[in-house]
Each structure stands twice: as C-alpha cells, then as structure tokens.
C-alpha cells in the first residue's frame, strides 16, 4: 500500500538517491515546516522523501572524542531533555526548550529546522555559539560544514540541490556555561532578537563564543565580540563594546515583530543581560 510520490527509504544513501533522481522531490522530517507550507499552498512538492524510516537519523549519540552527534530527525523535546548536553553545550538545550510549545517540540526536528534556516529560529545562533558542524548528504556521499558557514542567507543554507541535512556534530562539552536568551512577543514565538552564548572556563581563563539570532539573514557573530568577552568576561564595558560590535555586524529588517531600528537598539542590552547571567552561572559552579 502506498501513495504515489511518497517515499520512505530506510537508509541515508537511498534517500539521497531518491532526492537526486526524482523531479520536484522534497525531504520531509517532522513536518512542522513543510506540511504547514503545503497547507498554505506555498509548497507543492511533486514527490516527498520521508526521513522517518531511517534509524541512524534518530537520537543523540556520544562520540569517541566525547562530543555528540544529533541525528537530523531528533525532536526538539529530546534535545531539550538530554542532560548530557552540559557545560558549554547547554546552549543547545536552552535553545531547544524555548522553541514554540510542547506539542511542536514533539514534532519538529533539528534537521528540519536548520534546513529551513529561518534566521529568527532558535537553533541557528545556538549552533554557531556551540561551534557545531552540520553533516550534509548527497548521492555521492557526505560532507561537513561549520555551522557559521552553513547558514548562508535568508532561508538559504550550504545545502545544494539534492542535498539534505543528516545530523549535527558537537565538540566535546567544556566546563562552563551555555545559555540562550530570546526576546519574543510571547513565549514560544520566533525571536525579535536572541543571543546564544557558550562560556568555557578553565585554569587559563574564559573563552566565549556568542551569536545573535533574528537580526539579519543568518546568525550574527563578530570576532571582536568573542575576543572582548573572552579577555574581560563580566566586565560591563567589555560587554557593552561586544554588544556594539554585534549590533554593527547585524543586518536587521522591519517585520511584524519589530523594526530594524529597535533590533539594533536591543542587541547590546540583550548581550549585556546574557553575559550577566552567564557570569552568574559560572560563579555558581
């Protein structure tokens, strides 16, 4: 029994082959984005390749190096609830638990979310702050791209035609803190602006990665901001300067949630608040 045009392959290789050889085919992961677009007549795929039958895409696995691989089909609820994502990697859990609402977190997947690449979504800045890599498959094999290079433009990723996201690789967690602050009109909405921060702390000092969401075509980052915060973490002037550097790097637009001008104003304040919370989290350790 089957529906014409509907495919449910059992391996990544079969899925990549189907995508490559089927005209007008789209990948289906959790459905939270693609089916909503189909219902609104914004997408009319001629064929669908469901990733639901591929065991290796589900779940979070610890790697030999102490890092983790999050399969593309892993639901937001599973990522939000995995206590192994600790220390610097807590930034990803903190982002996952703030996505939409419990029902959508049971459906939506990390692969589907980042493959769609809405810049106001919660994972993109969190993955940049976590220094993650994205694994992409095509008919010829697989490749990995740093998260900061994966997000290319509005709703545009490094995935080419016939390619799809198969997973996310996280480096080993380092002792420290990871957090995600979202400014939204209501809880669970897309971000007006958001800040993702990971703070690694050891005997040599503190190392910071910070990224801003919702304020441009892709996650906003600035080498100067990371350097300022790493050199003087918790220093109010350094946090303010880092916030200004990120606001300068942002490229926000006016939309229904806020104006571009408002977003530029709010970035430094949200950065300062996030740094203060991260500092408190480090001191509480």
């Amino acid at each position, binding site marked *: *029994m*089957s*529906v*014409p*045009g*509907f495919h*449910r392959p059992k391996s990544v290789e079969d899925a990549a082959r189907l995508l490559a050889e089927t005209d007008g085919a789209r990948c*289906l992961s*959790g*459905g*939270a984005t693609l*089916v*909503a677009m*189909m*219902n*609104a007549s914004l997408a*009319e*795929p001629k*064929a*669908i390749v*469901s990733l*639901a039958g591929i065991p290796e895409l589900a779940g979070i696995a610890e790697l030999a190096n102490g890092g983790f691989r999050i399969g593309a089909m892993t639901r937001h*609820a599973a990522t939000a609830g995995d206590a192994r994502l600790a220390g610097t990697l807590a930034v990803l859990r903190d982002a996952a638990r703030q996505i*939409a*609402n*419990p*029902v*959508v977190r*049971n*459906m939506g997947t990390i692969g589907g979310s980042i493959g769609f690449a809405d810049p106001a979504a919660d994972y993109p800045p969190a993955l940049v702050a976590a220094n993650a890599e994205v694994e992409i498959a095509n008919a010829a094999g697989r490749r990995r791209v740093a998260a900061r290079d994966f997000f290319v433009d509005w709703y545009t990723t490094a995935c080419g035609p016939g390619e799809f996201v198969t997973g996310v690789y996280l480096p080993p967690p380092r002792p420290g803190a990871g957090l995600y602050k979202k400014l939204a009109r209501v*809880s*669970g909405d897309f971000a007006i602006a958001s800040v993702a921060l990971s703070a690694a702390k050891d005997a040599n000092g503190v190392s910071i990665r910070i990224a801003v969401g919702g304020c441009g075509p892709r996650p906003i980052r600035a080498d100067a901001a990371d350097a300022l915060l790493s050199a003087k973490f918790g220093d109010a002037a350094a946090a303010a300067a880092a916030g200004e550097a990120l606001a300068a790097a942002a490229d926000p637009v006016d939309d229904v949630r806020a104006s571009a001008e408002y977003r530029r104003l709010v970035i430094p304040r949200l950065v300062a608040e996030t740094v203060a919370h991260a500092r408190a989290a480090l001191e509480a350790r």
Partner: protein
Amino acid sequence: MTLALSINGRIRQVQAGLSDTLLTVLRDQLLLTAAKRGCNQGVCGACTVLIDGRPQRACLSLAANCEGAAITTLEGLQRDASMARLQKAFAATGAVQCGFCTPGVLVSAHALLSHNADPRTDEIRAGLSGNLCRCSGYRKIVDAVAEAAKEAKP
C-alpha cells in the same frame, strides 16, 4: 490510494493523496470530528491528537507518513479514567465556552497529567501553551485541569 492506519486501536483503510494530512483523513473520511481544523498551520492546537503516545498536530502530519504509527484521537479516550475526570472538571468549572478548542486542550491536558499527576499552575500553563482558546477562557481551563488532578488523588 489506500493506506492502512492504526487509529484508536483499530486498523482503518483510508484513501489519501500525497498532500492529504492525517486531520483531513480523520475528519472527512473517518468522521472522527473531535480534532478540529482551526489554523491548519500547527499554531492553534485544535487538531491535537496522540501519535505514538505523544501529543502532535494532525494538521502537520501527512497521512502517508502515519503508516505504522499508533494514533489516538479524543474519541479513542472515551473510556479512559483520566479523560473522564478532565471532561467532568471542564463541565463543572465552566472551562468550555464556544468549545472549538476543547478537544485539543483535553488531549494536551491528558498527556500532561499522564507524566505529571500533580502539576503546579505554571506547569499546567506550560503544558497547554500549544493550545489557543479564542474565547480566552484560559483561567477556567487551568482551574479545570487542576481540579481533575485533585480528583485523581487517592
């Protein structure tokens, strides 16, 4: 084309095209109309059903992708003791206004109580945050869920 879906413990044969959702099949073919078509975008929660035990959106689930999954709608929970307590509490508390959101809210509340038997008010609000009530009767809905939890205590 014909699909075999497991719905409320029975295998049902349905006809579905590539873009047909579980919600369309439930309502238009099987006449299981508790799940409502509100926004059809996954926002309002009126179509919430259990898929493999977890509350999910029937409007965002393609029927063809549901083969092999265990689907439970509100109709399938009619003999469930927890659901009976919830329904009684909703009626007694005045938590039903126009009623359009009620089936989805009940499914979400049932899922909440199945893993948290004694939720705090903020936990009830978070658990129901994926269900919109356009009558804005949230206060009595939260009261009703708390009442049902209280009733369940020995």
